[in-house]
């Protein structure tokens, strides 16, 4: 095994050993940062030994490579865009005409949703009946999407008072930029608008099964009302009622109720058991079985989530 002797520098075995340990890499083109013409000593291309010139050379090469890559990327992306457009346009041209009664999707599925919807779900708004009763599993998944997105934003932006007092102080200081210094116009407008917006949001939520709208749009309206109030009056006023604890417990209760109610309904449905939920008298507020309660839950979750998105973006806390 004389070839394993490290006295033979530059031997194949030495290169192989170095490569195996990660000290030497033939494929990565270290050549471009070596001084030309001179065979470098081991260790001569260390950062300390790198002259400024070589670094500049390296950066220039890097930039050139990235530039070339970007040009190729742009051309490829344009080609991709054109191909995709043409493919999709051709596909669209083979689809049924716009507004066609005989299109494939106007089949027995849609027919039953419309004809039996009132009898089976009790909702006057067919879309609400469909998403909260016939296809409720999707809608529950959708609420979970909102929940998980708010969890991710919490992980990203929430500043914890105890663990990180420095950033908390920084965030508080920054938040002064947002605080209006007794901006009369804004505050008057907010005083007039906020109650109207919030009441309208509640109306949309409660009438979700009777008229357009529902938990999600109503919740977003309530959320924007709260955000307007916060913008006009600052955290001192909203902090009195919208605390972290309240938001957490509201979300927990709403989602928990949603989960339990829907599990009950799925379980009874799949096992062909009788459920005590009845459609009620169509057209009344407290009708349509679970739909009105589910709308309220979704509304609460959405309003809380939107409000907490805003506060987290603004100063990383409530």
């Amino acid at each position, binding site marked *: 095994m004389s070839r394993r002797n490290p006295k033979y520098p530059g031997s194949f075995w030495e290169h192989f050993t170095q490569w195996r340990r990660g000290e030497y890499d033939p494929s990565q083109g270290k050549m471009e940062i070596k001084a030309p013409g001179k065979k470098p000593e081991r260790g001569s291309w260390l950062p300390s030994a790198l002259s400024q010139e070589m670094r500049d050379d390296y950066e220039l090469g890097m930039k050139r490579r990235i530039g070339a890559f970007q040009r190729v990327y742009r051309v490829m992306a344009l080609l991709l865009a054109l191909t995709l457009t043409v493919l999709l346009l051709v596909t669209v041209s083979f689809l049924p005409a716009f507004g066609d009664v005989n299109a494939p999707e106007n089949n027995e599925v849609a027919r039953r949703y419309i004809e039996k919807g009132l009898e089976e779900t009790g909702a006057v708004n067919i879309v609400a009946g469909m998403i909260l009763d016939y296809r409720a599993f999707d809608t529950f998944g959708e609420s979970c999407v909102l929940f998980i997105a708010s969890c991710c934003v919490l992980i990203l932006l929430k500043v914890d008072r105890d663990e990180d007092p420095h950033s908390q102080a920084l965030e508080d200081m920054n938040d002064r930029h947002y605080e209006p210094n007794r901006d009369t116009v804004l505050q008057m407008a907010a005083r007039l608008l906020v109650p109207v917006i919030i009441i309208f949001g509640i109306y949309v939520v409660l009438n979700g099964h009777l008229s*357009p709208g529902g938990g999600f749009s109503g919740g977003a309206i309530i959320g924007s009302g709260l955000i307007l109030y916060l913008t006009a009056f600052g955290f001192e006023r909203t902090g009195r009622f919208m605390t972290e604890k309240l938001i957490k417990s509201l979300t927990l209760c709403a989602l928990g109720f949603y989960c339990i109610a829907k599990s009950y309904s799925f379980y009874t449905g799949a096992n062909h058991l009788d459920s005590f939920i009845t459609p009620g008298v169509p057209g009344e507020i407290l009708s349509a079985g679970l739909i009105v309660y589910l709308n309220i839950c979704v509304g609460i979750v959405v309003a809380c989530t939107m409000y907490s998105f805003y506060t987290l973006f603004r100063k990383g806390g409530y």
Partner: protein
Amino acid sequence: MPALRIILLFFLIVCAVAVSFSRRLLVSVSIYMAFSLVMAIVWLILESPDLAITEAAVGAGVTGILFFVMLKKIRSIHTNIMAENGADPQEQNAAVDRDMED
């Protein structure tokens, strides 16, 4: 009323293109909000009031607010960085504007 439909759809496409070519981010966000509103009208014409009200509340409302507060947050982070580096206010604003442009 196909004419109205075509005009609205054309407006949507113009908005979408304008978003990518506008230089300032604030303008892009405002154009996006206009896009959402027009989209809500298109859905109203397509007999889907549920979608219209949701898009108006979400696309033009909450998403727009979130975009604005994000831009403002970025500006305040930027001001902090500049202040740490000891730049004077005039320069700070110029730098932020440059940053907000594409």
